[in-house]
C-alpha cells in the first residue's frame, strides 16, 4: 500500500467529526497523535486513503470501525485517585447535600460502573474514610459492577502494581495497603467494604436490580457506546438514581450531549449531573 498521508483538510474534517460524535476535541498540538492512529486504522482496514476510510467510518452500519477508532484515540487506563477532583466533590459537596435530606437510618448508596479492576471503588471508600467525618453517622453501600467477570475477580483480589498506586498519598498507602512481592494488596477491610457484581449496562432487566442510589460514578465508559446505547444508558442511570442523586462522568464526557434527563450541577470541585428532585 502506498504511503498514507493526512492532509490539513483531512485533519480538520476528522477533528470536527470526532468532536461531534464523541465530544472529544483534539487540539492542533495533538496532530501527530491523531495522524498516527488514523493511519494505523486506515492500514488495518485496507482503505485506500483517508477519504475511503472516512466514508466507511461515516456510513458503516455496524459502527464497528468507529468503536475500534475510539479505542485507539482514547487512553483506557485506570488507577487510584484518577480525576480525584470528583472524589473531593463527593465528600465536600455531594454527600453533605445528600445527608441534609436523606432520612437517617437509610444507607447511602454509591455505584461505581464500570468497576474495572476496582481502583475507583476503593478510592471512593478511602475518600469516605479519610475525608468525610460524617461517615461515622451513616451506613454506606459501595457497589462496583462490570460486565467482565475476570476483571471483577481481579478487583476482589485487590492486588495492584506500583503504577496503579502512584498517586495514593503515602499515609493512605501505609494505612490501606500491604506490600506483596512487587505489588500492593489493598486491606481486607476495604475489600470487604465493596460489593463487586456483574452487570450489563445495556440489559435493562439486569440494571433493574439497581435502584435507589445516591451517587453513580460512570467514568470513561459511555464514550465507547454508540448514540443509541449511550442514550439507553442515560435512561437506565435515571432509574438507578433516587431523586436528587448525582452522576459523575469522565472529564471528556458530557451528559448534556446525551440526554436532557439530568440537570447540570456546578460544585466548586467539579461539574456533575443530578436527577431532578421530584416529578409529579
Amino acid at each position, binding site marked *: 500500500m502506498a504511503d498514507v498521508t493526512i492532509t490539513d483538510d483531512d485533519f480538520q474534517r476528522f477533528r470536527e467529526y470526532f468532536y461531534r460524535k464523541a465530544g472529544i476535541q483534539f487540539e492542533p498540538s495533538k496532530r501527530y497523535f491523531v495522524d498516527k492512529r488514523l493511519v494505523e486504522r486506515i492500514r488495518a482496514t485496507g482503505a485506500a486513503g483517508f477519504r475511503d476510510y472516512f466514508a466507511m467510518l461515516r456510513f458503516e452500519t455496524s*459502527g464497528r470501525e468507529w468503536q475500534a477508532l475510539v479505542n485507539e484515540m482514547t487512553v483506557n487506563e485506570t488507577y487510584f485517585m484518577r480525576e480525584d477532583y470528583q472524589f473531593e466533590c463527593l465528600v465536600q459537596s455531594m454527600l453533605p447535600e445528600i445527608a441534609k435530606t436523606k432520612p437517617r437510618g437509610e444507607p447511602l448508596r454509591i455505584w461505581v460502573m464500570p468497576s474495572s479492576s476496582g481502583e475507583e471503588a476503593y478510592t471512593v471508600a478511602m475518600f469516605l474514610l479519610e475525608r468525610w467525618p460524617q461517615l461515622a453517622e451513616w451506613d454506606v453501600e459501595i*457497589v462496583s459492577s462490570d460486565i467482565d467477570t475476570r476483571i471483577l475477580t481481579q478487583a476482589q483480589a485487590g492486588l495492584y502494581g506500583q503504577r496503579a498506586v502512584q498517586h495514593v498519598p503515602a499515609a493512605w498507602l501505609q494505612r490501606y495497603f500491604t506490600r506483596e512481592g512487587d505489588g500492593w494488596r489493598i486491606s481486607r477491610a476495604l475489600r470487604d467494604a465493596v460489593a463487586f457484581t456483574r452487570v450489563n449496562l445495556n440489559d435493562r432487566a439486569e440494571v433493574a436490580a439497581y435502584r435507589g442510589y445516591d451517587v453513580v460514578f460512570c467514568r470513561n465508559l459511555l464514550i465507547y457506546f454508540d448514540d443509541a446505547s449511550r442514550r439507553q444508558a442515560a435512561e437506565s442511570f435515571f*432509574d438507578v438514581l433516587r431523586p436528587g442523586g448525582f452522576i459523575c462522568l469522565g472529564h471528556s464526557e458530557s451528559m448534556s450531549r446525551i440526554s*436532557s434527563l439530568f440537570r447540570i450541577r456546578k460544585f466548586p470541585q467539579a461539574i456533575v449531573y443530578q436527577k431532578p428532585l421530584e416529578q409529579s
Partner: protein
Amino acid sequence: MPFIKAKPDSAAHQPAHEPTPQDYAAQAALLAAPQAHVRRAAAQALGAHAEAVPALLAAVAAEGEQPVRSAMLDALAQLAARGSEEAVSGLADCLRSEDAWLRNAAIELLRGLPSQVASVMAHLLVDWDRDVRILAVGILDQLRHERVEEWLLQLIEADADVNVCGAALDVLADVATPAALAPVTRLLARFPAEPYLEFAGALVRSRLHADAAAQEA
C-alpha cells in the same frame, strides 16, 4: 467501619400489587397514572408490546413530564427497531411538533434507526413543510446509511427553498463524493448571489478537489 454490603435485588423493588411488564392492557392503562414514575415505568414496559404504538404516540403528545416522555419515545424507538413501521412514522411525525425538545429527541432516535428510517426519508425530503425537510436533513447529518449522499443530491437538485438546500450543502461538505460536483454546480447556478450557498458550495467543491488531488498523488 460503617460500610455494609448489599446485593442488588430487583425483586425488592417490584411491589407485589404492580402489574407485570407482560400485562399489556394494565401497562397501557398506567400511561395515565397520576404519578410520573409509574407512567415512566409503564412506558418502558410497553417497549416490548408491538400493539402499544398508538397508545404511546397519543400519550407522548399529552405528557408533560420530560422523563416520562423520554421513556415513551425510547419505547417507540425500540418498537421501530423491531420493525414497526407505525412507530417509525410516529417518530417522523414528531418533526412537525411545535415542541423543540420533542423534535430534537425524535431526530436523535431516527438517526439511530438507519435501515428503518429509509422507508420514510423519501417522503420527509419532499414534505410540504420546509422546516420538516430541514429537520430531515438533520437526521441525514448523523445517519449511517449508504444512501445519504443520494438523498442529499436529490434534494439539492429539486428543492426550491434556499434554506433547505443550504442545510443539505452543510451535510454534503462531510459526505460528498465526486458524484456531487455536478449537482452542486447546478444548485449554485439555480441560486445565484446567495452568499451562504456560495460559501457552503465552495467548501464542498474545495474538499472534492483536495480529495481528487490526494488520490492522484
